[in-house]
């Protein structure tokens, strides 16, 4: 009985030693993996970069239309973490028979103007993969608090036709609506000056005054002109607001500090 007890003790000691060794090895390999994926994680990025992105765009559908314009700045802190700020102005026309956001003379019922101020972090999770987490508040005709997550990742970067998957979700705490857009685009052609993209995407809404999930989707085309760092993306399709078209244009300025 005593011998068996001693054996059990030896076995327990051996298992504990094995567990310790495994733990140390796991920690070492985890640390190695971390160092491999995020070398210099805790170092300040030198030189730092400040990206300033100006953007504008519009959305028009049978039921309503919006125009938005704004700026976003991205300041690097470490190679993997940055600070983000965004200011967006929205103009919205609503009503059946809406036809032209630039000439809202007929068919519309009201026009809303509001600005959205957002700030947060930019997490560079993997080369070519960014996650923005932003909190913010509206001013003007809307006073909502919002929280937003924007995710963008490039797949197959070392190929002739990399694919971008992006996902953006915004929750409005005033009307409890969550607005989400999803997009999948591939680079069709890259040249010295141009990048051409094609894909598809859409948006869906849920919560608040929208009782059931509503959405829309369709194909989209994109183009980026490298010398000017200007890009544009257009989408058209069909959904809850019936036919719709969407255009966004952005221009990026990068400053090395």
């Amino acid at each position, binding site marked *: 009985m005593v011998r068996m007890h001693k054996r059990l003790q030896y076995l327990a000691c051996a298992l504990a030693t094995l567990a310790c060794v495994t733990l140390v090895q796991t920690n070492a390999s985890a640390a190695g993996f971390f160092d*491999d994926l995020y070398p210099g994680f805790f170092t300040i990025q030198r030189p730092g970069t400040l990206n300033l992105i100006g953007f504008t765009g519009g959305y028009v559908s049978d*039921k309503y239309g919006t125009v938005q314009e704004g700026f976003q700045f991205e300041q690097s802190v470490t190679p993997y973490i940055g600070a983000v700020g965004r200011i967006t102005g929205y103009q919205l026309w609503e009503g059946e028979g809406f036809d032209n956001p630039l000439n809202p003379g007929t068919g519309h019922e009201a026009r809303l103007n509001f600005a959205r101020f957002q700030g947060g972090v930019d997490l560079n999770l993997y080369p070519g993969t*960014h996650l923005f987490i932003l909190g913010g508040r509206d001013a003007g005709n809307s006073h909502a608090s919002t929280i937003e997550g924007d995710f963008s990742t490039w797949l197959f970067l070392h190929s*002739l036709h990399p694919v971008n998957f992006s996902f953006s979700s915004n929750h409005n705490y005033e009307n409890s609506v969550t607005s989400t857009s999803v*997009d999948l685009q591939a680079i069709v052609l890259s040249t010295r000056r141009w990048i051409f993209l094609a894909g598809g995407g859409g948006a869906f809404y849920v919560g608040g005054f929208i009782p059931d999930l509503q959405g829309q989707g369709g194909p989209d085309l994109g183009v980026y002109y490298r010398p000017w760092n200007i890009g544009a993306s257009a989408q058209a399709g069909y959904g809850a*607001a019936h036919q719709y078209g969407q255009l966004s244009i952005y221009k990026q300025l990068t400053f090395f500090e």
Partner: protein
Amino acid sequence: MRSFHTEKIAYRTFSYLLLLLLLAAINPAIAHAQAAPAGTASQVSGTVQIQRGAATIPATQGMQIMVGDRIITGDDGHIVVLLTDQSTLELGDSANMVIDQHAGSSTRVNLAGGALRSFVNRTVGAAAPNFEVHTPNAVAAARGTLFDVVYLLGLKRPTYGDIQNFTDVSVYEGLVNLANINNPAGGVSVPAGYESTVAGTNNPSGPGPLGMTGASAFGGPAGAKGVAASGILSPVSTVPPPSCPVCPEPPAPPATNPGPAPGAP
């Protein structure tokens, strides 16, 4: 007597040769007097030095660059060399390069560090130029006309483990064949609009669109975050607001009146 005369001539010849060697050692320009001209320095700014043999000469605009010259740029240095075949070599700051060979349309450059932009002149109707840029771990052979080669040492990149030396090639026009220097057969063709990297002793990565794979290019600071990778389709939300962003949540329907409890008055 005759033997003594022969010995004297041999002694004199040996002395002259020794003197010539001594002079060559003192003045390296003599030793390199036979080096072929590679081109001229068409633009020079900041600190740029030419190592010619044992001598170090500050580069000046218009000076002749010889085959075998080592060109070293300082933190603020920049030089453009116009080669005799009208090709150009543009060397960025903190770079180090030797023109190993330049004869006719055959050129070989050795880049030991920094960024080099090459414009390869292709005369219509002439044979395709044989233009190569070597780095310590890669060879970029140009079938095209405009491309950058950047060699970085002592820098880690995500997903590359402990590798600390990288050759990045960005192609703007034509086609460049990139290979690891120890495996020339394992090269990849990098077309215009794409870039590729040789990391350490690895074979080159598959070509990815310019500015998106994390490769450095001429004029971009080494180690800076991939600008375009975040900028192209930057996560600026494009989701349009819902049809009524200010509409309140509808009030909950009133609870159904359950009626008087059984037994209530």
